[in-house]
């Protein structure tokens, strides 16, 4: 039986899709059969970041509507044996998904995978609600700024009260905080909130801190999840986060301003 993981935030553009791609790929890299599901109907971003946009035939909505079977719609990753993507529809609107439709597909995926990673759309409306409703665990993606922290807090409230687990009175969704686009220099200057500030406000377990990194943009342009760039700071930070998700104790990195050496100053950071 799969674990259903939702990657959510409330606020838009904080790195949910980047994170879904990285975490899903990281789980598959460690031998877990994983599917990443794009819930952002109408926008379709995940397939670009995963580099499979040219192979999308059927999507999530087609399966909900019975126009295709799940196995027809699942796109197998070219790099990793046990990684799949279920794309969102670009042509439908947000109302194409229903709770019953989603439940049916989630149940089918549960049978065939170890991890189902749900990439949530922004907001706290229907799309985001459907993405988190069936979740067992949630990764709450937050940027170190007040508005993002507030939205994450709001989302945590919904996870605790409006999810299937909450409504059924079952054990609550396990919540993880992932701080992304972290820039220690700007924190030092007081332009951004520090890790401790965010941790204190949200009061949930810190899964990882992903630094603001050029590597993310480069990776998404190439259609390669950044976690596969194991030389990059962001790739390494996502790797640590996957290890923690699987229960390993790993110290946090990239929290402090790096002392730049002479070579750095002469040639610039990569």
């Amino acid at each position, binding site marked *: 039986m799969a674990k259903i993981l939702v990657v959510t935030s409330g606020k838009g553009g904080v790195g949910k899709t980047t994170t879904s791609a990285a975490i899903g790929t990281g789980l598959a890299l460690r031998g877990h059969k994983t599917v990443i599901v794009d819930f952002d109907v109408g926008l379709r971003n995940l397939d670009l970041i995963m580099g499979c946009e040219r192979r999308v035939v059927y999507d999530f909505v087609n399966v909900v509507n019975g126009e295709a079977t799940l196995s027809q719609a699942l796109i197998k990753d070219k790099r990793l044996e046990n990684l799949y993507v279920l794309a969102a529809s670009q042509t439908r609107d947000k109302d194409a998904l229903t709770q019953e439709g989603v439940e049916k597909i989630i149940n089918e995926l549960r049978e065939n995978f170890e991890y189902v990673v749900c990439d949530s759309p922004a907001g*706290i409306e229907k799309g985001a609600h459907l993405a988190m409703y069936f979740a067992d665990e949630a990764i709450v993606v937050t940027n170190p700024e007040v508005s993002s922290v*507030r939205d994450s*807090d*709001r989302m*945590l*409230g*919904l996870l*605790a*009260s409006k999810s299937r687990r909450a409504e059924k009175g079952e054990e*609550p969704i396990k919540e993880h905080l992932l701080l992304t686009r972290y820039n220690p220099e700007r924190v030092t200057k007081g332009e951004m909130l520090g890790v401790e500030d965010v941790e*204190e*406000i949200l*009061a949930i377990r810190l899964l990882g801190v992903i630094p603001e990194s050029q590597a993310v943009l480069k990776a998404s342009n190439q259609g390669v999840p950044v976690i596969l760039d194991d030389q990059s700071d962001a790739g390494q930070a996502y790797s640590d986060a996957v290890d923690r998700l699987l229960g390993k104790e790993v110290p946090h990195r990239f929290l402090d301003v790096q002392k730049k050496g002479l070579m750095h100053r002469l040639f610039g950071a990569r």
Partner: protein
Amino acid sequence: MSQADLLDQDPVFQLKGSMLAITVMELAHNDLARLDQQLGEKVAQAPAFFSNTPLVLALDKLPEGEGTLDLDALMSLCRQHGLRTLAVRASREDDIKAAEALDLPVLPPSGARERPIDPAPAPVAPSKPAEPELRPSKIISSPVRGGQQVYAQGADLIVLAPVSAGAELLADGNIHVYAPMRGRALAGVKGNTGARIFCQQMGAELLSIAGHYKVAEDLRRDPLWGEAVHVSLSGDVLNIKRL
């Protein structure tokens, strides 16, 4: 017209319809000895019920074969037990005659409008005024997030986890927050000016007691911002004191 003529016109009475609750005693048997005994038991249970209680004697359910009833004796038996007969309800020829002889009104047989009553036993002790009901406090042990609202109706609210900015706590009684408090807290929302707010770490957006409030702008200037505080109302001013 003379004064006396005017007085003659003045109505002496007025007829009014009324629905009275009257006890009906329906006899099942023509057995005065047993009736005496059983009535005595009832009276012992509920003495207050049997004191000059108006009564209709229903004789219409008496079986035909049970012989002539001594109505005079029945009425004085009832009277001994505190029941005053106003009328009888009868269908047997003999009973109707007996009632007419005593000048007692005779009502037609049962219209099946009554229901059996069981006089409630008298309260044992003189009744005390009811104790005010104690409503258990509402206790919240998971974080109250932005956009969430918690209301303790008719009770105190106790929160053991952080309260986020954008969250709202309401209570008819007191509010206690044993964790960082960054949201809104409104105690005594139904107007209880004696309600209080206790915060372990006060960083609130708004604090209010019985409608008298302070917003973050004022609260942030308070030297006790971020500290453990105790908030009460004196007159219409919120008093913030160190806990």
